[in-house]
């Protein structure tokens, strides 16, 4: 491949931003960017354009068709007339021979065949548009998941850092007390602290690696280089929306209107019907008008002026006509028609599956979102209790009336509680994003159904 081609490919592959890049990316900004530049969306858009081009291809059956050929060849001289039996060939004398033949055909009617084929291709293009919508909603849900995963890793790190400082100080003090043989610390206590430190180290590694990986994954979904720096608007996981989730019944109505699968099924049914019709008409003739012209010329042969004598070397023949063209293959046409009918059966089967499958998908997403909300509420209570445990154990240590064990156990409980709370919060946000997907929405539509506004982000 030439260097120019490689350079051109690299330029085409360079990350492009949807509009002016925001200074700080909110979750909706990320979704917007992904929908504009993600490769899967571009691929799906390409399929739509492919089928739109096929509609034009089918329609082109009615456009004029021109065929022509012209050539020049050397020819030796022959003298005489068509009536002579004894002609003279002069192989020392050569000259040009020119030939042109052309025909222009304009189809007038295919007796419904092209019309049926056009409808089938149009419905097929509509299916691809619905598939594009499906790619968009799934991508939006993935973007939200990665966005909140990144924030989760970022949110947990301050508490881990606080825990690390406290634990390291506790270990230092414990080591000193142990060396002094003060009686306050035994080997068991030191081992417990070391074990706790190793647990904390694992959380730290997960958070550090997780933050970087989630950031790279988010950049990839946005169609950016994985080392692109995205300044995220949220400093930490945002609070869960305090609105109750809408009733399931209202969401099922939204899904019945917005899920792209319904559009795919409806257009699929029409496409199968139209295709079957087109295949049944495959043996129909094509009515046309056509013009044809043939011209030959050479000075190396005598020109027969008599129109009743066929002269292939010097002639001008042409004319226009109307006619019918047949291309009969009944067995093949029948087989193709049956194949199209079978496609219709497949679509009918999918429709039956979707009638219960889509509501089940919505129900499951709704249940998961409700469950996540309740789990987060419980985890937040636990985290608050653990925080109080830590604070009051600390205050008891300040006055000297508390035990170091209570403080350390409080620290462990606080870290575990905080981690659980943040994980539950992440899942609550992700579940709401998945609910939007189940409804057939990206969440950034300019106009949303009223029931959807309560879902929040």
């Amino acid at each position: 491949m030439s260097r120019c081609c490689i350079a051109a490919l690299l330029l085409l592959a360079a990350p492009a931003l949807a509009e002016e890049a925001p200074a700080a990316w909110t979750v909706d900004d990320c979704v917007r960017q992904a929908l504009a530049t993600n490769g899967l969306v571009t691929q799906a858009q390409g399929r739509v354009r492919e089928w739109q081009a096929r509609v034009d291809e089918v329609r082109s059956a009615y456009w004029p068709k021109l065929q022509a050929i012209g050539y020049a060849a050397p020819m030796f001289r022959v003298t005489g007339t068509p009536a002579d039996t004894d002609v003279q060939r002069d192989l020392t004398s050569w000259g040009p021979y020119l030939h042109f033949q052309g025909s222009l055909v304009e189809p007038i009617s295919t007796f419904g065949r092209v019309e049926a084929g056009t409808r089938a291709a149009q419905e097929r293009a509509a299916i691809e548009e619905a598939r594009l919508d499906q790619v968009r909603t799934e991508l939006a849900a993935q973007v939200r998941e990665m966005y909140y995963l990144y924030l989760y890793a970022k949110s947990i790190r301050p508490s881990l850092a606080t825990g690390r400082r406290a634990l390291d100080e506790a270990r230092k003090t414990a080591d000193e007390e142990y060396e002094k043989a003060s009686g306050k610390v035994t080997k068991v206590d030191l081992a417990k602290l070391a074990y706790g430190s190793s647990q904390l180290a694992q959380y730290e590694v997960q958070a550090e690696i997780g933050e970087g990986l989630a950031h790279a994954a988010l950049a990839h979904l946005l169609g950016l280089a994985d080392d692109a720096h995205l300044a995220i608007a949220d400093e930490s996981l945002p609070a869960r929306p305090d609105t109750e989730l809408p009733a399931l019944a209202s969401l099922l109505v939204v899904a019945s209107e917005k899920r792209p699968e319904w559009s795919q099924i409806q257009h699929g049914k029409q496409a199968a019907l139209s295709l079957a019709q087109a295949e049944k008409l495959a043996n129909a003739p094509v009515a046309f008008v056509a013009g044809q012209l043939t011209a030959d010329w050479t000075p190396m042969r005598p020109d027969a002026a008599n129109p009743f004598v066929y002269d292939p070397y010097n002639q001008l023949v042409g004319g226009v006509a109307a006619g019918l063209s047949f291309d009969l293959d009944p067995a093949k046409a029948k087989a193709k028609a049956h194949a199209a009918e079978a496609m219709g059966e497949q679509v009918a089967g999918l429709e039956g599956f979707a009638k219960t499958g889509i509501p089940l998908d919505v129900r499951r997403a709704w249940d998961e979102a409700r469950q996540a909300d309740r789990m987060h509420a419980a985890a937040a209570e636990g985290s608050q209790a653990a925080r109080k445990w830590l604070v009051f154990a600390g205050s008891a240590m300040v006055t000297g009336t508390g035990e170091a064990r209570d403080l350390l156990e409080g620290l462990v409980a606080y870290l575990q509680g905080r981690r659980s709370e943040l994980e539950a919060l992440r899942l609550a946000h992700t579940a709401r994003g998945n609910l939007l997907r189940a409804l057939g929405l990206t969440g950034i539509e300019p106009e949303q159904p009223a029931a959807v506004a309560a879902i929040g982000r």
Partner: protein
Amino acid sequence: MDRRASHTARILGVSLIALTLVHAVAEAEEQDAAGRTRALVATLTKASGGEGEKALGLVDDYFDFDGITTQALAPRSDKLTSAERDEMRNRLRRIVRRAGALDAGAFFRKAKLTYGTVRSEGDSTVVPVHAEVPADDVDAVVELRWRQVGGKLRIVDVAFDGDSLVKDYQNQLARLFDKEGAAGILKKLDEREAAVAAKGAKKK
């Protein structure tokens, strides 16, 4: 009838004036408590680590340490001798005073503070302060309870996320008393003061 009516009217009038005055006083106290809270935070924030002793003196004006330590020992107070009670209060006062001045000051220096709506509760005024330290993952509401003591508004209790520190001191000390007696409490307070003093000497 006229006399009774005018008497009733007088009583009602006086009551109304009294209520208005009480309300005005309460409002004034709320504003005063809010102002005192801000002043305390500003004072503690300005006193740097190197000026620890200076900060200790500054907090005396804001806290009712006598009341706090008395309340903390209240559940077992009747089981203590007068000398034990006084000694415990003195030691507890020194410890809590140090924590209030130095530890709180260090915290306020790095926290982002938002003052909440002040409210009256009986004879106290509660000032909520929302404190955030993102780097330490701290996000808590600390409530300072103010009351008139010796002609001045002073802090008589601090609550963390709605739970009283004084109440917790009461339970800690009661449990410690039940387990180890008065001598045990005095020993713990002694050890704590010694540990703090040793830490302070190490820093110098």
